[in-house]
């Protein structure tokens, strides 16, 4: 992103890093291959049957697009959240954001049973925003930056909100629907129902534009203020972006556990934390992991499917524990 950086006759790369290089190209090709595989995987014979083309357009393409958008969105939300809380173990499913989005969705459906998908999403986004702010305010009040306490607080908060949702669902006979939403799955992604996911593409653009400010916020309130940034405004902005991404994904796909946690950590291990040059990598890796998990979920008990959140939960938990142990060793 530094147009004239080649003019510097120094061996050291400039502080502003280049976005595109051959490695990223390889990554894009690899992910494209996975997506191609996703298009070809399924029980229905899209090439042999008469209405194969139609089925391909109705289910396969939407599903694959949804994998791209949801994978990128959740990985990115995790990254932004980790910067804002200055904590490596935080992401929308370990801070209660997803549970809040679920609660918002449930409340909208109870109050307006015939709510459109946009209305449901609005409910989920608002609840996700409120919930994430509650979490951030709590963190500021107790000023707990200890790396493990923060996600524990978040998981507790999420559990409480999840219990409230369960209680309300029990009272209103919606427990089964609740279970279906929370088990993140791309099975029901069909043409005409997933298009709102494109909103997260706008969120990705917005995150890219404010990437530097978010990185500075990741250095803490003092440093951010020192270089003349309004810290509280960045927190609000970042929370808003996370809430929109999480809300939309929760409504369309459901809960994608650990994705936002493992992806930024892996990218950071290899590339450090320059947000803007990392964003394409975070999006790519998020897409790759979700796609692989969805492929496993689709093929393991063919012709049936396992919710992708089950696979993600297992893989994510293993990586999470590895990261924890690794940090212990370093500390």
């Amino acid at each position, binding site marked *: *992103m*530094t147009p*004239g*950086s080649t*003019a*510097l006759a*120094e061996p*050291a*790369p*400039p*502080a*502003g*890093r280049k976005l595109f290089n051959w490695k990223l190209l390889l990554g894009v090709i690899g992910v494209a291959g996975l997506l191609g595989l996703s298009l070809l995987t399924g029980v229905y014979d899209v090439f042999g049957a008469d209405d194969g083309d139609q089925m391909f357009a109705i289910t396969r393409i939407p599903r694959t697009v949804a994998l791209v958008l949801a994978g990128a969105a959740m990985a990115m939300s995790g990254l932004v959240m*980790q*910067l804002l809380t*200055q*904590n*490596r173990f935080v992401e929308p499913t370990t801070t209660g954001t997803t549970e809040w989005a679920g609660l918002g969705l449930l409340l909208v459906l109870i109050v307006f049973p015939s709510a459109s998908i946009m209305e449901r999403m609005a409910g989920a986004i608002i609840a996700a925003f409120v919930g994430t702010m509650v979490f951030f305010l709590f963190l500021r009040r107790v000023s707990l930056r200890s*790396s493990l306490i923060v996600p524990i607080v978040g998981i507790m908060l999420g559990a409480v909100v999840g219990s409230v949702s369960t209680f309300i669902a029990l009272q209103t006979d919606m427990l089964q629907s609740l279970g279906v939403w929370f088990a993140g799955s791309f099975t029901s992604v069909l043409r005409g129902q997933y298009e709102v996911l494109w909103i997260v593409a706008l969120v990705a653009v917005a995150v890219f534009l404010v*990437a*530097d*400010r978010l*990185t*500075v916020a*990741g*250095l*803490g*309130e*003092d*440093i951010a*203020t*020192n*270089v*003349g*940034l*309004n810290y509280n405004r960045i927190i609000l902005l970042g929370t808003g972006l996370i809430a929109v991404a999480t809300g939309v994904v929760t409504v369309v796909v459901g809960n994608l556990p650990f994705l936002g946690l493992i992806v930024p950590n892996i990218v*950071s291990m290899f590339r*450090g*934390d*320059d947000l*803007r040059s990392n964003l394409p990598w975070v999006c790519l890796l998020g897409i790759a992991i979700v796609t692989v998990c969805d492929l496993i979920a689709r093929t393991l008990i063919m012709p049936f499917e396992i919710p992708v959140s089950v696979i993600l939960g297992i893989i994510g938990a293993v990586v999470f524990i590895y990261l924890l142990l690794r940090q212990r060793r*370093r500390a």
Partner: protein
Amino acid sequence: MITLSNVRKSYNSEVSIGPVDLQIPAGGITALVGPNGAGKSTLLTMIGRLLGLDEGTIEIGGYDVTTTKSKDLAKIVSILRQENHYVTRLTVRQLVGFGRFPYSKGRLTVADEEVISRYIDFLDLRALENRYLDQLSGGQRQRAYVAMVLCQETDYVLLDEPLNNLDMRHSVQMMQHLHKAARELGRTIIIVLHDINFACHYGDRICAVKDGRIAEFGTPEEIMTDDLLTRVFETPVECINGPRGRLACFY
């Protein structure tokens, strides 16, 4: 010049500041010294607008810190606090690059890159510039932080105990770098120090803070007297003439 007029702040039950009236002239190094809990860091943080005042005004180079826009102040004064622990994995060069944020808003220009290189060299960080901060020793990391605030190119630089956790060699090196920044780059440096001998040797002025007020303000020669230091630090102190200037003995 930094001017504090009638500054008051109730920080917590232990530290309450003020009223403080103080004028720190531009140029050179001014050391803030005093016992623990005297309010040195609080004063510095207020000057650096990281902490609000309850009463009074602080002006830096004619700009009121409470009314001037934060992004404008970022080109006048920079502050480095004591505890800097980042979870963000940045290289030294990336960290120093954030010092250009007030000018470039993150989109570093070629000119910015040159400025960054200059400060990396100024603090002898060239060999380390592509290392991650978590791969550095405490002294190296501290140098990188100082490079970042110098790279902000502000006339006024506030540093809260930059010698904390540094050994003898690194402490001396750090003070020499700061001395050079004050002399060669014409910066006004306000620094909180614990070691009175460092303050005496490298400071152009010493400001002794006690119980939230300015106890004494003057040149090292004026401050380095037995009575004054004994009173401020509540510990018997004797000043002697060492081989390189006055020394306070309190061991």
